[in-house]
C-alpha cells in the first residue's frame, strides 16, 4: 500500500467507489457531457431510376433502414432466412417455437400478457438515444426495468458454507469493513500534507459516511444491511456483521457488486411494456416492403451497377437484383455464403467470433420471491447458472416468468448447450435450489435459449476482437460496391440494439452521401 495519497489518487478512488454518479458529476464539471443527439436519419428523396433496395435479414437494423428509406421513396425488399421477423430481438410466449438448430423446442407457458420471457433484449439504458428515439416516434410504451435489487441474493459455494445472503447485507458490510480500514489508515497518518486541515477532515467524514461508521471510525453494523427484526411498533434490531474474510471469499465483489455501476447497466433502465419485441414490431405497420420469409440467402454478387442476390424460397432457387443492398446477416454465417467481395473485405468478414450467452426461463406457479421482499432485479451465484432474474413486470400477480439462468461465460453456455433441453432445466433447478430452497416446487415448465445454437444466428453476437476491429471495422463500415454491411456487428456495441441502430444510421449516412453525389455529379 502506498504511504502517500495524492488528490488525484483520491479522486480516482472516489470515482471507483462512488461509481457512475461520481463520474457523471466530474463529466458535468469538465463539460464532457455529450450533446443531445438527433435521432433523425437524413436520406435524400429517391427520384427517377435507382430506387430499388434489397435488405438481407429482417432484424431491427434492417427494419429501421427500410423505415427510413421508404420515407424517402425507395422500394425495399427484405429477404429473411428464418420463419420469423425480429432476429435477435426475441420475446418468447405461450406456444412459440424456439428454433434451436437441429433441436427445436416449444414454449409451454400459460397464455397471459405478463407471462413472457425476453430471451435477448432485456434493458435499455438512458443514453441509447436511437432506441429511445424510435420508441418515442413509434409509440412504444416503456416502463422501468429493475437492474439492481438490494433484496436479491448473493450465493457462493466458497463463502458462508454456500448460504445465500441478502445483497444489501453483503454490500453494507463490505463498505463498512473497507471504510474502517481507510479510517484506521488516516489515524496512522499515512496521508501526507496534501490532506491536512479541512481536506483531511472531509476525507475522514466521507469515509465514515461511505461505510456508515460510528464517530470513532468503527463499523458496528448498519441498517443499510436491513433490520434483523422490528422497526415499526417495536424497536428495530440491527443485524450483526458478517465475517469479513468469508465475505472476501465470495466472488460477488468481482462483478455482481459493481454491476449496476457500469455504463450500460446503471439505474434506471427501461423495458417495453408487454415484452421487448414490441420495439421491432412497432416498425412493421409503417413498412410497405415485401418481406420474404424462410428465404435463406445463397449467394451475394456485386455487379457493376447493382447487387444480385440468390435465395431459396419454397424449395426453389430465386434471384433478385437491386440497385443497393444492406446486409445484416451475422458475419460469421456470411463467411459461408459465396460472394465476389474483395479479398480484404472477405478477410474482415472472416474475422468475426461468436458470442456465447444463454438464458433459461421458468414459469412459476407462484411469485414466491415477492414474499421474500424481492421485486425484480438479479440474484448472483458462482455456479454456472451465474444469475437468477425476477421479472420487473406483473408484480403481485399469481404467476411469473423468472430466469433460472443467464450465463455469460463461454464454458458455461457451451456446457448447457451440449445438454438436451430437459437436462438443462434439471441442472438449472439443481443449482437454483442453492439460492432458493424448494425452488423446484414452484416450477411448472421452462425453456432454454442457447444463443450460439439458435438457427441463423449461431451466437448472441457476431463480433470482432479489439485487434480485428482496429484492422477491419472502418473497412466494413464503407460500402463494398453497392453493398453495405450492417447490424450491431458493424459497431462498437455488438449485443445492443443501439449498436444495430447506430450501424443503420451510419450506413444511411454513407448511402445518402453517395446518392447526393450521384445527383449533383
Amino acid at each position, binding site marked *: 500500500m502506498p504511504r502517500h495519497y495524492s488528490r488525484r489518487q483520491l479522486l480516482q478512488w472516489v470515482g471507483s467507489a462512488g461509481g457512475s454518479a461520481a463520474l457523471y458529476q466530474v463529466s458535468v464539471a469538465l463539460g464532457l457531457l455529450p450533446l443531445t443527439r438527433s435521432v433523425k436519419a437524413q436520406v435524400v428523396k429517391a427520384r427517377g431510376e435507382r430506387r430499388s433496395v434489397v435488405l438481407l435479414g429482417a432484424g431491427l437494423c434492417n427494419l429501421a433502414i427500410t423505415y427510413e428509406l421508404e420515407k424517402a421513396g425507395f422500394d425495399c425488399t427484405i429477404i429473411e*432466412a428464418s420463419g420469423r421477423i425480429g432476429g435477435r430481438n426475441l420475446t418468447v410466449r405461450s406456444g412459440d417455437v424456439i428454433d434451436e*438448430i*437441429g*433441436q427445436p423446442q416449444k414454449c409451454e407457458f400459460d397464455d397471459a400478457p405478463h407471462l413472457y420471457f425476453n430471451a435477448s433484449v432485456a434493458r435499455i439504458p438512458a443514453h441509447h438515444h436511437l432506441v429511445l428515439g424510435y420508441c418515442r416516434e413509434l409509440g412504444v410504451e416503456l416502463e422501468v426495468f429493475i437492474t439492481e435489487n438490494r433484496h436479491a441474493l448473493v450465493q457462493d459455494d466458497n463463502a458462508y458454507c454456500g448460504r445465500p445472503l441478502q445483497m444489501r447485507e453483503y454490500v453494507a458490510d463490505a463498505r463498512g469493513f473497507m471504510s474502517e480500514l481507510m479510517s484506521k489508515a488516516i489515524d496512522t497518518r499515512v496521508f501526507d500534507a496534501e490532506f491536512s486541515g479541512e481536506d483531511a477532515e472531509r476525507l475522514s467524514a466521507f469515509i465514515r459516511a461511505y461505510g456508515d461508521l460510528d464517530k470513532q471510525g468503527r463499523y458496528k453494523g448498519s441498517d443499510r444491511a436491513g433490520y434483523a427484526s422490528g422497526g415499526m411498533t417495536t424497536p428495530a434490531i440491527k443485524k450483526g456483521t458478517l465475517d469479513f474474510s468469508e465475505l472476501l471469499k465470495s466472488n460477488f465483489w468481482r462483478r455482481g457488486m459493481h454491476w449496476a455501476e457500469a455504463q450500460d447497466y446503471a439505474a434506471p433502465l427501461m423495458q417495453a411494456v408487454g415484452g421487448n419485441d414490441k420495439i421491432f414490431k412497432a416498425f412493421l405497420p409503417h413498412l410497405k416492403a415485401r418481406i420474404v420469409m*424462410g428465404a*435463406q*440467402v*445463397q*449467394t451475394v*454478387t*456485386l*455487379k457493376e451497377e447493382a447487387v*444480385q442476390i*440468390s435465395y*431459396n424460397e419454397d*424449395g*426453389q*432457387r430465386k434471384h433478385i437484383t437491386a440497385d443497393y443492398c444492406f446486409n445484416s446477416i451475422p*458475419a*460469421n*454465417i456470411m*463467411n*459461408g*455464403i*459465396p*460472394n*465476389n467481395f474483395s479479398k480484404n473485405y472477405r478477410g474482415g468478414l*472472416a474475422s*468475426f*467470433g*461468436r458470442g456465447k450467452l444463454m438464458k433459461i426461463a421458468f414459469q412459476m406457479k407462484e411469485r414466491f420471491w415477492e414474499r421474500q421482499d424481492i421485486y425484480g432485479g438479479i440474484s448472483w451465484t458462482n455456479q454456472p447458472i451465474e444469475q437468477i432474474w425476477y421479472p420487473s413486470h406483473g408484480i403481485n400477480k399469481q404467476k411469473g416468468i423468472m430466469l433460472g439462468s443467464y450465463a455469460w461465460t463461454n464454458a458455461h453456455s*457451451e456446457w448447457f*448447450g*451440449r445438454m438436451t433441453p430437459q437436462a438443462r432445466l434439471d441442472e438449472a433447478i439443481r443449482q437454483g435450489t442453492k439460492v432458493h430452497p424448494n425452488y423446484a416446487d414452484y416450477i411448472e415448465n421452462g425453456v432454454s435459449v442457447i444463443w450460439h*445454437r439458435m*438457427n*441463423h444466428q*449461431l451466437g448472441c453476437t457476431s463480433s470482432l476482437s479489439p485487434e480485428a476491429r482496429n484492422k477491419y471495422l472502418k473497412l466494413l463500415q464503407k460500402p463494398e460496391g453497392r453493398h453495405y454491411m450492417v447490424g450491431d456487428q458493424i459497431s462498437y456495441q455488438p449485443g445492443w440494439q443501439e449498436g444495430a441502430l447506430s450501424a443503420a444510421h451510419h450506413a444511411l449516412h454513407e448511402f445518402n452521401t453517395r446518392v447526393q453525389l450521384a445527383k449533383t455529379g
Partner: protein
Amino acid sequence: MKKVVLCILSLTLVLSPGIICAAEPVTSQPTPERFIYCTVCHGTAFQGNRSLDAPNLSILGTWYVKVQLMNYKKMIRGGAGAKNHVQEMQQMVTALDEDAIGEVSAFVGTMKSTPASSTIFGDSARGAKLYQSCGTCHGADGLGNETFGAPRLAGQHDWYLERELVSYRNGSRGAAEGDLYGAQMRASISMLEDEESIRDVLVYINTFNQTLNKN
C-alpha cells in the same frame, strides 16, 4: 440402400440446377427445407466455413458423409470429452434417424465440388514424398477410395485437415471403440512425425486438381 438411390433420382428429377451467371459463385440445387440447417454452418454451397469450424462437404462422396454421420450418431466422433465444435456437430444428428442420414448424405453427394483456398505454407516437394504412403488409401490424386473407407482430401480446407491429423495423433479421433476406419487412419499418422511434416503434406495436397468429379 435402395432408398438412397431412389432419393438421388427424385432429387435430380424434381430440382433443376439454378442458372448460374458468370460472376456468381458456383452453387447447386436448393437444399431441401429440412436440411437447410446444415448449411448455416457448412455454408450454402456446403463449401465449409472456418468461422464456424465446419469442413467442406461439397467435395465428399455420399458413402463417406454417411459413414461419418453414423459415427457422430454412435458417438464415435463427438463423445464426452470431445472438443466443443465436435460435440456441436454430434448434436446435429441426434434428431436424424438412419433414413434421414441416408437422405442428407445422398443430397450432399450431389453437390458440385467447391474447392477450398489454401492457407498453409510449407515444402511441397517434401510433402509429395510423404504423401506417397497416404496415396495408397486416399489415391494418388487425393480423390479418396471407398474400398478403404478413405475420404477425398483434394479440395478440403487445409486448416480442417491439419486439425484432424492432430486429432488422430492425440487420439481424440480414431481411438474410440468400434472405429475401424479411424483406427486404420490413426495407424498411418505415425508417418507424419511432426507439425512440419503435416504442413508439408497438406501443401502438397493443395496442389491436387480440385475440380475433378468426386467418386
